[in-house]
């Protein structure tokens, strides 16, 4: 994990001073509401339904245990004893008081944390593969490059007031776990002629207009990464639409210009600044790499008898957890472990202060004092000795963090929804709970196999519903909550993942297709069940996943299966709407 140098620390501290003064001026009436809004947003502070919401940055999802303990402290002292991990690998507190935020930021700065650019129309927290640096299928370790981008984007003087928010993701593995295809810029680290570089995808994104990113440069050699990003951002900053916030993301500019013309404009801008002062030097990379602490693995771990198989043969619960929550590691004798924050009845991504402290203790004992946040809103212990897995599992089980559902239907990505968010059209947490309760039978859940189910409370798509194999979206119709269902979305790994076909591009991401008219809240578990049963009836074998069957058969068979049910048909939903509208 990257450790701050003097410059990093000074910048974060100066930001605390700056924001404390801005808050004071706002409270004293020296800054208007309009003037303060963007300033507070650039420090992660929203005004939400109940109270301000503070989003704290976790750069590319990496966290150490002193930071996690600080987050627990913040949750206890200034919030209601819990936090919420978001799909950008950040953490959110839903109940702080505005007056307290400067103090919170000051405390966070003592453990090298901040809330800079976690919101607002600026470059947001760069995200990456939660298994970066340890995945067996990794080609290039993206972490040092993520840190370079983190530094370059932080307090960037030219790009603080973009037309709209801007998200960058980096992947360095064969399997794209960073969803580079649905980011404003997706970077895929590759090697070409013995040199590291990046494929650059631009204009992907979800929200109102879901689009898979377009490849605008097949190889930008590493020294030129930052100048290429600068050129891309400059074209967007000057030419992105500012007249309509729904058309202001870079994806609209790329679409309107065509990817080819956009790429030409970027290239023209790039030629002017390429080889300039922001060109990355080898010494610069070395300086940053040297500030990373890397785990000192015990070579003896490879030969230790981990006894996992014998434990698994006698304990089916452990066996299930091993299958779903334990992941391969490039270091022999080690594994990565997902701590599922998707227990039924707990809002996805939520974690209590007590759990944070307990997880910090576990990470100190089993994970070199570090952990990761995944964009699927779980925590990862990235470097666990295999011979400690059984012990760790028992401890996690007591904490309620061993739900064996990673990759399965109940590992639902969800935004906080209408219970907390003022943008939401509909609640999402109660929907998630109802679905999890319907699929509580673990044998059935395991039989269904890998299935990404994502829920968003509104079209802003914070719950990534577009790339769920099944997506659920809250919509507003005449003041009522309704839910639209999509199938066939995926965050990566589809056909032509390397840039082949016209329908599936980016890291092989695909946008789900709407199956038909929306449903009432209490119909959703039935709809999901119908979709799943249709899949089970049509799959070739257990190896063929839900999304594979949707790809093979198309959506019609699923659509028919759902809407043939009189309780779920459009007529019935329409009637339900009329009845509700009539107040019955």
């Amino acid at each position, binding site marked *: 994990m990257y450790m701050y140098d003097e410059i990093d620390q000074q910048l974060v501290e100066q930001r605390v001073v700056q924001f404390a003064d801005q808050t004071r001026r706002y409270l004293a009436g020296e800054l208007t509401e309009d003037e303060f809004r963007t300033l507070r947003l650039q420090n992660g502070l929203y005004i939400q339904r109940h109270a301000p919401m503070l989003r704290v940055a976790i750069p590319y999802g990496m966290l150490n245990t002193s930071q996690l303990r600080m987050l627990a402290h913040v949750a206890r002292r200034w919030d209601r004893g819990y936090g919420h991990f978001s799909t950008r690998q950040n953490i959110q507190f839903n109940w702080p008081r505005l007056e307290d935020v400067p103090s919170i930021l000051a405390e966070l700065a003592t453990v090298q944390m901040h809330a800079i650019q976690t919101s607002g129309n600026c470059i947001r927290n760069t995200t990456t593969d939660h298994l970066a640096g340890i995945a067996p299928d990794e080609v290039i370790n993206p972490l040092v490059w993520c840190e370079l981008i983190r530094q370059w984007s932080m*307090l960037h*003087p030219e790009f603080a007031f973009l037309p709209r928010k801007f998200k960058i993701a980096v992947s360095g593995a064969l399997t794209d776990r960073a969803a580079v295809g649905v980011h404003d810029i997706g970077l895929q680290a590759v090697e070409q002629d013995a040199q590291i570089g990046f494929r650059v995808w631009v204009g992907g994104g979800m929200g109102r207009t879901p689009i898979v990113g377009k490849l605008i440069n097949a190889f930008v050699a590493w020294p030129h990464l930052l100048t290429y990003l600068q050129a891309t951002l400059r074209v967007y900053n000057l030419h992105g639409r500012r007249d309509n916030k729904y058309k202001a993301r870079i994806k609209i500019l790329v679409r309107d210009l065509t990817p080819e013309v956009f790429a030409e404009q970027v290239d023209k801008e790039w030629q002017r*600044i390429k080889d300039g002062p922001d060109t990355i030097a080898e010494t610069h990379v070395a300086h940053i790499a040297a500030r990373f602490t890397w785990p000192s693995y015990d070579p003896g771990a490879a030969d230790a008898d981990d006894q996992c198989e014998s434990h698994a043969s006698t304990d089916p619960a452990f066996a299930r957890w091993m299958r779903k929550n334990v992941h391969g590691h490039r270091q022999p004798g080690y594994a990565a472990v997902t701590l599922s924050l998707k227990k039924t009845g707990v809002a996805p991504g939520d974690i209590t202060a007590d759990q944070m402290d307990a997880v910090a203790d576990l990470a100190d004992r089993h994970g070199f004092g570090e952990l990761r946040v995944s964009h699927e809103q779980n925590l990862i212990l990235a470097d666990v000795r295999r011979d400690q897995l059984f012990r760790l599992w028992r401890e996690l089980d007591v904490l309620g963090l061993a739900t064996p559902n990673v990759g399965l239907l109940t590992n639902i990505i969800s935004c906080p929804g209408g219970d907390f968010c003022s943008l939401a059209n509909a609640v999402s947490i109660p929907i998630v709970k109802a679905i999890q309760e319907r699929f509580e039978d673990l044998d059935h859940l395991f039989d269904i196999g890998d299935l990404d189910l994502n829920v968003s409370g509104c079209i802003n798509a914070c719950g990534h519903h577009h790339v769920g194999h099944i997506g659920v979206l809250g919509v507003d119709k005449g003041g009522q909550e309704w839910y639209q269902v999509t199938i066939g979305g995926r965050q990566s790994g589809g056909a032509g993942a390397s840039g082949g076909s016209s329908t599936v591009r980016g890291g092989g991401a695909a946008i789900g297709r709407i199956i038909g008219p929306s449903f009432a809240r209490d119909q959703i578990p039935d709809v999901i069940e119908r979709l799943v049963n249709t899949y089970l009836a049509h799959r070739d074998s257990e190896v063929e996943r839900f999304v594979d069957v949707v790809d093979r058969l198309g959506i019609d068979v699923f659509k028919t299966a759902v809407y043939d049910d009189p309780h779920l048909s459009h007529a019935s939903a329409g009637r339900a709407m009329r009845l509700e509208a009539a107040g019955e």
Partner: protein
Amino acid sequence: MSEQDGGSGGPNMLRDGQVLRDETRLFDPQGAQLDAASTPPDEPGWVVTLSTWAARREAFRSRQHPVGVQVQPDDDISGLSSADSGIRQADLHGIAFVAIIFPVYTDGRGFSLAQRLRHEYGWHGEIRAVGDVLIDTVHYLARCGFNSFVLKEGHDPHKALHAVSAFTRAYQRSYAVVSVKRPPS
């Protein structure tokens, strides 16, 4: 009247570390119903739009008192120069300063325009931020190449002077690191 005199209102401008009163005024042929070919009198303090400048560049250049040129965020700044990109740098003479307008402070195009002026056009003269300019934006503006700031009402230029160096370190190497010489207090 020089800017240093302070004028009728209080100081509202920062320039190269000095707190001043902005006394410039915009020459607006349409608004004043003047002949489109007319130019402002040859005296200090006039600002013209980019299109006015582009239309009568040579006339403006022969003045004793050069004009400032006002640039809107959606203006095509290639109109500042009559030359092709190769010799642009030599073609910006006769301009007192370039004033980039911020209709709202969240419109960030002016930041990129200033960068282009500095690096693509080689403009070493004054770049002035005008419009919705806050104490809170002068640091980024200064890093992007602005060296004068007409602050909006309610934003004290003395406080802005301190805010210019709100951050004393920086990551981005192609942008200025701001260290302001403050006048002795």
